[in-house]
C-alpha cells in the first residue's frame, strides 16, 4: 500500500470496533476464558469479551467511515460496530470493573487482514487508505496488571505485538522515510583474528575463522575493502543453512572405546574400506570426503546405477540437485517431495515460525523443475512435555509452542488449500529451548516439466510479495545457537506470512507454466533463506547476473540496497524469463493480481554478480569465489559411545511408576494397566485435536485419511489419488526413532524401517518407495556430536541400500541447542526424521488399520528378541536399561515385501505396524478403531528359539520389522504361503464382546474397548491448551 509521506492535511486515523450483538455468542472471548482457565491460576476473570479493532488512516468522510463499519467490517445479522473519532472517545467506553488489553501487530509486521480490508475499501469507495488491525479483550473482574500478564502469556508475543491497556488510537501511523544512498565499506583487510571473530558475531555473519580468513585474503587480492552488501551476500551464501558445509566437508572420524554395549561396539574402520569416499588411516581414524555425497547420496546413486551392481532403479528422475527430489508417478506424471525445518524462528514466535516454515516448503515445491503443484503437506513437531512446570528464561512454555505451531501450520496450509495429511509429535524435555518444526510438502508435475535452466539474456523477474525489513538474517540466524537473549536480538528474523499472497502466486505460476505454447519461464526458484541474494545468486551462479535493486516493490520506504538484497520477506519467487515472453507474463500476473518486477538480467561477461541502485554500482562479486571460495576446513569427529549413551531416551520424562498406576509384573491385570498408561503417553495418545484442525481433504484426493475406522484410529500412512483418471495412489508416511538416540546408527535404521512399515501397511509397493533425510543435531562444532552424525549418515547408506529406498532430498539443521541465562547448554537429542512416499498400484487394494470383523484371526509377523531399551515401557516404568533394538537388514526388507504380496493378494482385512508402545498398544488401537473386540495371547509372539523372552518384552518392546495382520481363518493357509519362513504366529482372535481380553497362559484380564479409546483420546486432547 502507498505510504505517502506528502502533506497529509485531511488524513487522520479512524478507529472502528466490531463485536457480537447483545445476545449473540462470543466464541473468541469464551475461548480465551477457557485458555485462561487451562493455565490454572487461582484468580481468573468472570468473563472475557472480544472485539475486532480496525484503525484506518485516510481522507475519509463520516459517511465513508460509517459505510465501512456497517457494510464491510460488521455483519449486520450478528454484529454491531462502533466508530471512535478520538482516543478519548474510545477510552470513555471502558466499563468499570473491566480491564482492557489490546493486541496490535508492531509496525512492519505483516497484517493480512489489513491488506484485504484496504482492497475492499478501495473497491467500495475508490479511496486508498492504510489499515491496521488489532484485537480488544475486555476482562471482567480483574485488574489491568493481571490482564497484561494474561496478554503476555496467551494473547500476544511482544516480538511481533504491542500490548495496550487502553483502547489504542494513534494520531497517525509511522511511515518510512525515503532512502538516500550511502555505500558502506567494512574494513576487514587489516583486521586481526580476534577482530575478525568479533565482526563475524556482531554483524550476525556467523562465519568461521577460516571463512573470515578466506574473505580477507580475497579482498587483499582485490586490493580493496568489501562493501557491506558483498559481505552480507557471502554470509548468506556460505551459511550452514544454504550450503550444508558441515555435511559436505571432509571429516576426520575416530572412535573412543566406549562401554562394551553390543550396539555401540562396531567400528566404522572395519567396514569403511568398502564405502565410497571413505579412507582408513593407519591409526584407525577414517577420513570421509563430503559426508553427504559418501553416504546418503552414494546409496541413491548406487541404487540408480547398473542392475548388475545392485542398482537398477529407474524411477528416480531428479535427486539432490533441485529444490525437491522428483520420482516418476506414472508415464505422464512425476511427484516431488521436500521437507524443511524452521526451528529457531518457531522457538521465538511459534505461530509465525511454523506458518512461514510450511510456506517456504510449499515454495520449494513451486520452485522445483518448471514448477510443481503442491498436493499435500506433512508436519512433525518435537517439543518438551506440555506438563513441564518451569521453563528457562528466554523460552516459551512448550504447551504454547505446540498449540501455536499447530495454529501456524493450520492457518497457512488451510488457506493455501493444501491438505496436511501426515505427521507426528515427539515429546522430550531436551527440546524446551529449541523445539523442532519439520514441514514437508509434496508436488505433482507433468514429466516433461521436471527440469528448468537459465540462459544469458533471460530477465530476472521477481513475483509475489513486496519486500520489507522482515526476515533479515534468517539464514545466518538459523545457523547460530539459540540463547536466552535471542528473542530480542533476532526479532527481525521472525515474520508472519500471508498465505493468500502465496496462493495467488501459485495460481499465477501454474497458469504461466501451462501455456498452450509452453511455459513462459525457463527457470524458477523461491526466495527462501537469503532472499534475492541466494535466489539470484544460485540461478546465476554459472553465468552471472546484473541486478537493479531499486526496482523491487517495497512494503514501505527507507530500505537500503543491502536490506532489499538479503530480506527474507515471504511469498516471493524468482523466474528466468526470455524477453519475448515478458508481455504475456505481465498479462497472467494482472489476471491473478500478482505484483511483479524486472530486477535485471542473467549473464555477465565475467560471470560476476553486479548489484546496482539507480544505476550506481553498490556491489560486484566473482561468482566463482561466491560459490566455490568457501574454504571447507577438515572437521574433527569423535564417536564416544559413553557420551552418546548419556543421551538415552529415559526419565526425566514424567514417570508414572511413582503414582503406583501399575507394577512391572507379568500378571495379566498389571500388563493391562501398563497398556492403559502407555495409551495415555503424549507420544502415543491421539493427535486428533491437531489432525482435525487441518483441512486434510482439500483437493478431493484423499483415499486413506490420517484418522481411520469408525472411531478415528491412528492410520499408518495417508494415501492420495493425485490423478483423478488413474487408479494409482501415492502414500505418505514418516519414521522417527528418537528413543534410540543413544545409538544414532540403530536409531536411523529403525526410523527407515518404521517409515517403510507405515507405507506398506496401507498397500504401498515397497519397491517404489523414496525417502528424505532431515538431520536436526546439537552443535556439530563439538566433535562428539559430529561423530554421532557420521554414524547416523552411515546408517542412511546401509538402510537405503538394504530396503532399496533411495534418498532423493534432504536437509540438515546442525546447531540445535539452547544456552540458558546461567550458561548451561541444553542439547536436543540427535533427531533424524525419515519422510517417505511411495506408489500404491491400485487404491482399491488399500488397507487400513481398524479391525473389520469379529471372527477374524490376528497374526503377528516378525521376531521379538526382548530388546526393551529406549521403549515407552521403560520410560513410563522409570527404567533405563536394556539393549536397544537392532534392525535386521535382511529380514526387514523381506518382511515388507511379503506383507505387500499378501495385501495385493487381497486376504488382508487390516494391517498395523508395531511402533511406539509395542504389541499391546498396536493391537488395542486396531480393536478400538474398528470397535471390534479382541482376545490376545502375547506369549505366542514369535521369538528366537534359543531366547527366553519375558512376557513384558513381548507386550511392550518396540522392535522393528513387526506387523499385525487381520485375516479370515479361511485365508490363514494362503497367508502362510505369502510369509514363507518369515517368523509369524496366530496370537489372537477378534470377537463380538466389546473388550480387549489378555490371556497370558491362562491368567486373563479384560478391558472395555471404550475405556481404551477414552484413555487414548482424552490424554491426546489433554496436551492442548484448551
Amino acid at each position, binding site marked *: 500500500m502507498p505510504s505517502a509521506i506528502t502533506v497529509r492535511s485531511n488524513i487522520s486515523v479512524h478507529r472502528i470496533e466490531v463485536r457480537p450483538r447483545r445476545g*449473540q*455468542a462470543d*466464541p473468541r472471548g*469464551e*475461548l480465551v476464558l477457557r485458555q485462561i482457565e487451562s493455565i490454572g491460576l487461582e484468580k481468573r476473570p468472570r468473563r472475557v469479551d472480544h472485539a*475486532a479493532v480496525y484503525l484506518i488512516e485516510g481522507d475519509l468522510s463520516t459517511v465513508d467511515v460509517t459505510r465501512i463499519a456497517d*457494510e*464491510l*467490517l460488521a*455483519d*449486520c*445479522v*450478528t454484529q454491531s460496530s462502533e466508530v471512535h473519532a478520538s482516543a478519548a472517545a474510545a477510552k470513555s467506553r471502558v466499563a468499570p470493573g473491566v480491564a482492557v488489553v489490546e493486541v496490535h501487530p508492531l509496525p512492519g509486521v505483516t497484517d*493480512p*487482514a489489513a*491488506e*484485504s*480490508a484496504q*482492497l*475492499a475499501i478501495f*473497491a*467500495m469507495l475508490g479511496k486508498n487508505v492504510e489499515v491496521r488491525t488489532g484485537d480488544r479483550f475486555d476482562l471482567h473482574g480483574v485488574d489491568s496488571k493481571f490482564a497484561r500478564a494474561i496478554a503476555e502469556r496467551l494473547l500476544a508475543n511482544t516480538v511481533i505485538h504491542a500490548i495496550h491497556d487502553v483502547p489504542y488510537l494513534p494520531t497517525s501511523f509511522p511511515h518510512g522515510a525515503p532512502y538516500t544512498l550511502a555505500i558502506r565499506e567494512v574494513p576487514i583487510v587489516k583486521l586481526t583474528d580476534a577482530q575478525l571473530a568479533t565482526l563475524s558475531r556482531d554483524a550476525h555473519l556467523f562465519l568461521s575463522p577460516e571463512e573470515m580468513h578466506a574473505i580477507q585474503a580475497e579482498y587483499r587480492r582485490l586490493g580493496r575493502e568489501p562493501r557491506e552488501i558483498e559481505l552480507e551476500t557471502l554470509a548468506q551464501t556460505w551459511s550452514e543453512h544454504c550450503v550444508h558445509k558441515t555435511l559436505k566437508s571432509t571429516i576426520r572420524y575416530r572412535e573412543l572405546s566406549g562401554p562394551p554395549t553390543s550396539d555401540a561396539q562396531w567400528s566404522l574402520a572395519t567396514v569403511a574400506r568398502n564405502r565410497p569416499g571413505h579412507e582408513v588411516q593407519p591409526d584407525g581414524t577414517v577420513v570421509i570426503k563430503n559426508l553427504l555425497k559418501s553416504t546418503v547420496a552414494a546409496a541413491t546413486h548406487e541404487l540408480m546405477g547398473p542392475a548388475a551392481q545392485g542398482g537398477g532403479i529407474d524411477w528416480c528422475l531428479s535427486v539432490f540437485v533441485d529444490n525437491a527430489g522428483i520420482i516418476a508417478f506414472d508415464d505422464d506424471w512425476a511427484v516431488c517431495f521436500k521437507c524443511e525445518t524452521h526451528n529457531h524462528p518457531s522457538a521465538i514466535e511459534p505461530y509465525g515460525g511454523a506458518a512461514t516454515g510450511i510456506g517456504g516448503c510449499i515454495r520449494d515445491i513451486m520452485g522445483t523443475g518448471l514448477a510443481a503443484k503442491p498436493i499435500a503437506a506433512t508436519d512433525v513437531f518435537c517439543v518438551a512435555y506440555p506438563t513441564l512446570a518451569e521453563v528457562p528464561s528466554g523460552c516459551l512454555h512448550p504447551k504454547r509452542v505446540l498449540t501455536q505451531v499447530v495454529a501456524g501450520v493450520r492457518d497457512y496450509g*488451510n*488457506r*493455501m*488449500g493444501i491438505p496436511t495429511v501426515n505427521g507426528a509429535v515427539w515429546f522430550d524435555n531436551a527440546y524446551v529451548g529449541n523445539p523442532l518444526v519439520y514441514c514437508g510438502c509434496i508436488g505433482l508435475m507433468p514429466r516433461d516439466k521436471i527440469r528448468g535452466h537459465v540462459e544469458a539474456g533471460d530477465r530476472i523477474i521477481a513475483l509475489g510479495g513486496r519486500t520489507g525489513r522482515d526476515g533479515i538474517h534468517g539464514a545466518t540466524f538459523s545457523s547460530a545457537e539459540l540463547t536466552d537473549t535471542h528473542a530480542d536480538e533476532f526479532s527481525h528474523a521472525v515474520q508472519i506470512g*500471508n*498465505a*493468500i499472497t502465496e*496462493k*495467488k502466486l501459485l*495460481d499465477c505460476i501454474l497458469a504461466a507454466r501451462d501455456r498452450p505454447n509452453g511455459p513462459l519461464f525457463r527457470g524458477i526458484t523461491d526466495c527462501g533463506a537469503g532472499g534475492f541474494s541466494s535466489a539470484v545468486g544460485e540461478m546465476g551462479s554459472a553465468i552471472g547476473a546484473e541486478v537493479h535493486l531499486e526496482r523491487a516493490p517495497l512494503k514501505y520506504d527507507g530500505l537500503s540496497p543491502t536490506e532489499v538484497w538479503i530480506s527474507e520477506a515471504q511469498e516471493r519467487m524468482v523466474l528466468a524469463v526470455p524477453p519475448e515472453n515478458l508481455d504475456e507474463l505481465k498479462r497472467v500476473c494482472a*489476471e*491473478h*493480481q500478482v505484483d511483479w518486477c524486472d530486477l535485471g538480467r542473467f549473464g555477465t561477461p565475467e560471470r560476476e554478480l553486479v548489484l546496482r541502485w539507480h544505476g550506481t554500482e553498490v556491489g560486484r562479486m566473482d561468482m566463482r569465489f561466491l560459490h566455490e571460495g568457501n574454504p571447507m576446513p577438515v572437521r574433527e569427529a569423535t564417536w564416544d559411545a559413553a557420551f552418546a549413551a548419556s543421551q538415552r531416551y529415559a526419565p526425566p520424562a514424567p514417570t508414572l511408576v511413582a503414582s503406583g498406576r501399575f507394577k512391572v509384573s507379568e500378571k495379566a491385570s498389571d500388563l493391562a494397566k501398563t497398556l492403559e498408561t502407555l495409551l495415555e503417553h503424549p507420544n502415543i495418545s491421539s493427535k486428533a485435536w491437531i489432525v*482435525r*484442525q*487441518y*483441512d486434510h*481433504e*482439500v*483437493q*478431493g484426493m*484423499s*483415499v*486413506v485419511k490420517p*484418522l*481411520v*475406522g*469408525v472411531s478415528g484410529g491412528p492410520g499408518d500412512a495417508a494415501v492420495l*489419488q493425485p490423478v*483423478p483418471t488413474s487408479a494409482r495412489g501415492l502414500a505418505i508416511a514418516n519414521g522417527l526413532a528418537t528413543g534410540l538416540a543413544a545409538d544414532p546408527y540403530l536409531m536411523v535404521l529403525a526410523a527407515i524401517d518404521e517409515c517403510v512399515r507405515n507405507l506398506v501397511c496401507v498397500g504401498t509397493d515397497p519397491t517404489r518407495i523414496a525417502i528424505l533425510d532431515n538431520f536436526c543435531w546439537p552443535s556439530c562444532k563439538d566433535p562428539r556430536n559430529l561423530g554421532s552424525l557420521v554414524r547416523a549418515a552411515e546408517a542412511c547408506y546401509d538402510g537405503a541400500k538394504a530396503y532399496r529406498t533411495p534418498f532423493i532430498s534432504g536437509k540438515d539443521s546442525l546447531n540445535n541447542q539452547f544456552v540458558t541465562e546461567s550458561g548451561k547448554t541444553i542439547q536436543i537429542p540427535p533427531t533424524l526424521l525419515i519422510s517417505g512416499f511411495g506408489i500404491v498400484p491400485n*487404491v*482399491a487394494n488399500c*488397507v*487400513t488399520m*481398524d479391525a*473389520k470383523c469379529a471372527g477374524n484371526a490376528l497374526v503377528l509377523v516378525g521376531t521379538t528378541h526382548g530388546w526393551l531399551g529406549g521403549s515407552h515401557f521403560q520410560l513410563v516404568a522409570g527404567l533405563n536399561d536394556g539393549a536397544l533394538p537392532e534392525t535386521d537388514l535382511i529380514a526387514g526388507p523381506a518382511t515388507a515385501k511379503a506383507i505387500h504380496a499378501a495385501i495385493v493378494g487381497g486376504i488382508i482385512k*487390516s494391517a498395523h505396524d508395531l511402533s511406539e508402545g509395542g504389541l499391546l498398544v498396536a493391537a488395542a488401537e486396531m480393536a478400538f478403531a*474398528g470397535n471390534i473386540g479382541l482376545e490376545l495371547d502375547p506369549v505366542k509372539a514369535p521369538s528366537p528359539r534359543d531366547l527366553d523372552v519375558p512376557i513384558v518384552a513381548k507386550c511392550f518392546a518396540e522392535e522393528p520389522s513387526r506387523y499385525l495382520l487381520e485375516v479370515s481363518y479361511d485365508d490363514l493357509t494362503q497367508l502362510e504361503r505369502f510369509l514363507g519362513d518369515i517368523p509369524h504366529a496366530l496370537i489372537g482372535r477378534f470377537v463380538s464382546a466389546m473388550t480387549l481380553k489378555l490371556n497370558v497362559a491362562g491368567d486373563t484380564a479384560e478391558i472395555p474397548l471404550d475405556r481404551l479409546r477414552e484413555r487414548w483420546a482424552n490424554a491426546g486432547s489433554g496436551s492442548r491448551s484448551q
Partner: protein
Amino acid sequence: MQLPALVITAPGINCDLELCRAFELAGATVETIHLQRLSREPALVDRFRLIGLPGGFSYGDDIAAGRVMAQLMRHTVYPALAAAIARGVPMITPCNGFQIAVQAGLLPGPSAGARWPDEPAAPTVALMQNVNARFHDGWTRFEVPAETRCIWTRGLRPAPGTDLLPSAHGEGRFVTDEDTLAQLKANGQVAIRYVASDNFNGSIDAIAGICDATGLVLGLMPHPERYTRWTHHPWWTRLSPALRQGDPPGLAIFRQAVAHASRVSV
C-alpha cells in the same frame, strides 16, 4: 449434449478442482473463470447452464469468512448471477461459497414468486465462528428435509453408513432471526441438516444448508464435491461392496442438478 458449467475462482478459492471434477462426473463440461475477468465481462455468465461458487479462503477470509469476496461481487457480478438464476440456472455454493452467497445477496434470495432485486439485498442469515472457535475437519451424518424445494438435495436418502458428508470450516455456525427461520422452514428452503448429534458447529436448528425460494440455489457448509468417489468415504475399507454401488451421495447431489438443468429450456 453436455451442459456447460461455470466455476468462479478468485484469490484464496481452493476447492475449485474438486468442484469441477464433481460437475464433470455428473455429466457437465466445466469452465473456470477468475472473478477479475468476470467482473470486467459479466456477460460471460449468460451462456452457462450451471454455476458453482467453490470453497476456500477467498481473500484470506479476512475480516470475516467470505466478507471481502462478497463485497466485490455485490458491486460487480451480482446482477449477472441473479439474472442467470431467474432464467432457471442451478447454482451450488459449498462452504466458503455459502459464506459468500449469504453476504452477496444470493441467499436466501427473494421470497417465493418475487423477482430478484437489481441491488443485492442486505444479509438476513449469517455463518459465524463455530461454537468451539476452532476450524474442524470431519464427516457428519446428514438428513434432507422431506419438504425441501432444493433441486440439488430433494429426495436424497442414502443407505445408513453412507449418509455422511465432509465438512472443513471454522465459521459454519448458521445464525438467523426467528422470523427468517420460520420463513425458511415454511417455504421448504432448509435444504439439508446435520443429524442433531453431529451438529458440531452449533448451527440453529442443525441447519447445514439452505436454498432460495425456487430451490435452484443451494448453499451448504459441507462439501458434497469431496464425496464423489467411494474411496472418499472415511471408512470405505469397511463398507460392504453392496453398499459401495452407484453414486456416492455427494455425486448424487450434482447429478440431480445436472438432470434438472437439462430439463430447463433456455
